């Protein structure tokens, strides 16, 4: 066979390939238009309005006064390096400005300080950092500083801010990164007393058995740390009575939640049950982002901080939870549930006393099933049309703001 003959065969072979394609047709991503146009849907948590972002995947949401800030994630048609600024005073959120954070591919987390003065944004993946903005003009935040250290280099997954003894701190959950100078996941505490010059005051590597830290929750001088497979640790950073400070925390107790993959925490202060319960989000697999997710809400009794124990759970078939927001006045926990939208749970009172029919036994652990106890009191964006993938929620004044990776920002009516 000559070279010329071989070359002549090539076009035939390539033409044959044109008939070999048979991929699965995928449903286009939705807009936030509901079936029938302007219908508010049939969910208890009715849709008030929405703001679409189509060029980027939306991540977390933070709301203060009449403004919402949503971050962006990964790469869609553009990098996840934008903070979208929404005026949410009217029914439909109106995009009024945006901020591009340089050198970032994912901005996974955003938070506003309790006095509304600061906005902080976490930049994830390589060159991880904490970016601090002045909110004097909430419509146009102004960057004050950016903290990037060898300890944040791997990428800052979440940044929580809160006060200890009246002083403002940021708690950073840092990713592991293969090949980095310090490849392990870490917890970094930053002093924001002078937000123009943030100071890193504490670093602790996550044990390799964890092996990640995804989120933290700071309240009353206690820091709850979600350590993935290692469960939840409770640290005294000034309120635990064991001499801990933000610069030198003391571990009070820990518990491994059923199934591991502990992602986020909310420590509830309830007028009825007091400070007895903490809620843990399990971000489990398998999850193909955009269409599926797995993971329960786990309820911990933390009345003894040194021996927290799991007492109840909430499960949604075919979906998994992500971030929470709690209306503590009404005793309602709102949970982002990715492809299942938003769920509202009545978390008031005793959550660990239930009938045998409402109990589930896992090994030697007996837990109450909040679903079987009728604790679910509302759903939002749960109809499947349009498809949603809700990352975060925030309750503010009777409204639920839900950030949706596929569509942008939703305003929902809170459970009455």
């Amino acid at each position, binding site marked *: 066979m000559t070279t010329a003959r071989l070359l002549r065969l090539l076009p035939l072979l*390539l033409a044959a*390939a044109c008939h070999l394609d048979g991929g699965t047709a995928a449903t286009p991503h939705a807009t936030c238009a509901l079936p029938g146009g302007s219908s508010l849907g049939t969910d208890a948590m009715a849709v008030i309005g929405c703001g679409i972002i189509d060029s980027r995947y939306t991540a977390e949401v933070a709301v203060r006064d009449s403004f919402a800030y949503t971050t962006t994630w*990964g790469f869609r048609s553009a990098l996840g390096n934008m903070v979208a600024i929404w005026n949410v005073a009217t029914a439909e959120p109106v995009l009024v400005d945006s901020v591009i954070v340089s050198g970032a591919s994912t901005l996974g987390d955003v938070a506003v300080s309790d006095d509304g003065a600061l906005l902080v944004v976490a930049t994830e993946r390589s060159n991880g950092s904490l970016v601090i903005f002045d909110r004097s003009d909430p419509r146009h935040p102004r960057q004050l500083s950016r903290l990037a250290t060898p300890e944040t280099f791997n990428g800052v997954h979440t940044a929580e801010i809160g006060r200890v003894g009246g002083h403002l701190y940021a708690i950073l959950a840092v990713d592991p990164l293969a*090949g980095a100078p310090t490849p392990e996941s870490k917890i970094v505490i930053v002093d924001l007393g002078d937000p123009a010059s943030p100071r890193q005051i504490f670093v602790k590597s996550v044990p390799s058995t964890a*092996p990640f830290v995804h989120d933290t929750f700071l309240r009353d001088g206690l820091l709850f740390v979600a350590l993935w497979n290692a469960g939840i640790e409770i640290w005294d950073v000034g309120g635990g009575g064991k001499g801990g400070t933000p610069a030198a925390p003391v571990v009070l107790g820990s518990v491994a939640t059923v199934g*591991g993959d502990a992602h986020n925490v909310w420590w509830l202060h309830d007028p009825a049950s007091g400070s007895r319960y903490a809620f843990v989000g399990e971000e489990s697999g398998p999850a193909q982002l955009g269409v599926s997710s797995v993971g329960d809400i786990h309820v911990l009794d933390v009345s003894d901080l040194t021996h927290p124990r799991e007492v109840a759970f909430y499960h949604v078939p075919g979906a998994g939870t992500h971030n929470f927001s709690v209306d503590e006045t009404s005793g309602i926990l709102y949970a982002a549930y990715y492809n299942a939208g938003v769920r509202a749970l009545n978390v008031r009172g005793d959550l660990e006393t239930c009938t045998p029919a409402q109990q589930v036994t896992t090994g030697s652990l007996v837990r109450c099933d909040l679903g079987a106890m009728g604790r679910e009191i509302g759903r939002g964006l749960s109809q499947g049309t349009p498809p949603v993938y809700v990352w975060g929620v925030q309750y503010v004044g009777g409204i639920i703001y839900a950030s949706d990776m596929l569509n942008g920002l939703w305003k929902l009516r809170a459970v009455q």
Partner: protein
Amino acid sequence: MNRQAVRLIVSRSCFALALGSTVTSAQDAPPTLSMGAHAIGLLTRATSTPEGRTLTEAYLTQPIVSADGRVAWFQAMGMLNLEGFTLRRGELDVGEWGEGYVDRRHPHAYVHELMVGAATPLAPVAASLFAGRGFVPFGSDDPMSRPFVSYPVDHHLSQILERLAVVSAVRARILLIEAAAFDGDEPLDPSTPQLARRFGDSWSVRATLVRSLASLGDAELSASYANVKSPEYREGQGMDQRKAHASFRVDANGRFSRYALIEVARTTDVDHGRPLYTFNAALAEGALCHGGTGLAVRLERSDRPEEERLLDLFRAARPATDVSILGITQWTTLSAAVALPPRSLLSAHAAPYVELARIRVDRTTAALFDPVRFYGSNLMWRTSVGLRFGIGHDHQREGRYGVAAAAPPSSTNSPPHAHDMSSPSCFR
């Protein structure tokens, strides 16, 4: 696999070696040492790369120096791969993935292979035991020793390489059984060594029926399975993999040298014992050579996990920070290659070649990753031209050691014989 299983593999291999020594005396062949060096100068053009760009790039790919020494029953082999110098950003190859690279093939480790061991003579029952850094008995031959320069998408589904491994093999006429204990962590980069403490946390087995058939040439039917612990999370806490592979391969030299491979592979990611994601692959390739001119064709359909891209869109986060992925894409590729006769000078040669590939990518679900948005199209073309340079010994078939690397018997009663079993000469 636990340490007990490692001990079992080693002890059985020693037993088999002892058995071989009772039936055949040590080889009288003189010591041998052969060396070779190869590299490929490559100009490649790919349409619809990330963000829809058409890119044209040139580099030196697969630059290797290899050596093989044998004294009686003992053998040592090594291969130095210099892609860490020439391909730091990876070789442009839309669809390719692994070790933190996406749509570019990652550079391999400098110490691609360094194995030492012993093999009994090729009596009716023969055995070998090798140890070092190298290939695990799983799947098919390394793509570097096959006709195409461009790697298939299924590389990380159909091969396991660059591991600290103890590999044993027992051969009885047409049946070959191999087993290995190794470390699950895949290379971090070309220079960082594996974590020695992870040796033995993973294992594989491969069974092969080998036979020389007059009509087809040397034929192999093989099946393999591997249990790999946390390949992507170096400390060992990430998702595990269960891998299965089956293939049929024929190889014949003569006036027209021929080669064909059909393989199917499946890898399942497992978290805490729960199966999460499954990736399938099917590939068929063949080559025909005559007088230094050759034609090769490859058809492949393989799944690929989609993960979060970094600022450099050809890179993905490693390790992933949870057990989620952005979707599974299916890549259908038809490739054709033509090799032209080499020009030789002393013991060196240079052979031009051309490769053309039509690549189609499809979503398998409506998960986040949308290839049409990401690439601007779900249809890509890749064209490559280049020169294969070589001096010294030819590319050997990669991935088998000792008695597993011998050619098959021509009948059920005749013993296997020494043979390099490499791919058709025009694609070396």
